[in-house]
């Protein structure tokens, strides 16, 4: 299933739990959606760069298992955007459920 446009919100949600690197973010999203969302990992980094350009996440150098890695963390502005996105999503989800009915 491909929910276009939801990837930035899913990334922000993953980073709201803890700072992380690209691979772990991808795994976290896949695990939490139980693989339902069709999500190609090559599209994760452009989305991360876009969030970084918008000031919603920031990156820093970290080390994992002795290897340097680029970590990302959510900013104050990112938290605000995530809160707004969550509210919009609940509203949309409620509206669609009202039409389609509880399955």
């Amino acid at each position, binding site marked *: 299933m491909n929910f276009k446009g939801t990837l930035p919100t899913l990334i922000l949600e993953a980073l709201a739990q803890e700072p992380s690197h690209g691979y772990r973010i991808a795994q976290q999203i896949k695990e939490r959606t139980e693989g339902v969302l069709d999500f190609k990992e090559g599209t994760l*980094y452009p989305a991360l760069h876009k969030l*970084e350009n918008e000031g919603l996440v920031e990156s820093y150098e970290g080390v994992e298992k002795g290897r340097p890695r*680029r970590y990302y963390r959510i900013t104050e502005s990112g938290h605000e955007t995530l809160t707004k996105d969550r509210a919009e999503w609940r509203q949309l989800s409620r509206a669609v459920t009202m039409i389609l009915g509880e399955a």
Partner: protein
Amino acid sequence: MTRLDTWLKQATRHLSKGSVAQVRTEIQEHYESARETAMSGGATSDEADRLAVTELGDANTSNRQYRKVLLTSAEARMLREGNWEARAVCSRPLLKRLLPAIPVVMLLASLALVLTGEIKAARALLAGGIAMGLVFTAPFLPVYTPSRGRVFRVVRGVVMIGALVFAFGPGALKMSWLLASCLWPLVWIEWTRVSIRRKLRVAEWPKHLYL
């Protein structure tokens, strides 16, 4: 060439050298982690390699997305060479003193033409003087925040259009096809600058990107 190299070559097409290095590093890190996970799950080296690259998805799709958020080679060149006129002027002391005098001379010449009754030529000179004055004073203005930059660009656009309308008078609309064909390179440059501003953090903007 490995599968990953082929993927990276496609995904980094038309990106700047800096962007290519950034993409290579992050995708290489990602690929190694994915490969390790696959091998710890019992996959052979070749299977793990194939799986890790397949998980990255279509390289052309990634390339399209990267080009929207990272500098392309054309944008990097414009950023590097975008203020060559200013550098060329500043490196020649005589030219540096002479150029700001041109708008003043044009305004004085326009006044002289008004006095001799050459109104049409006077209008053209006055409009040119105002437009050139704005261009030459821009680097000295305190435009160093994005909002001031936006205000400056709007004012500059309005003054430029106003100057052209003023210079051509009632015939400005008739001449619009000529103006449009002459000004499209400026529009293209401004369009590219908009794209660069979106991709760079404000802290990384050089002075000429505000203008």
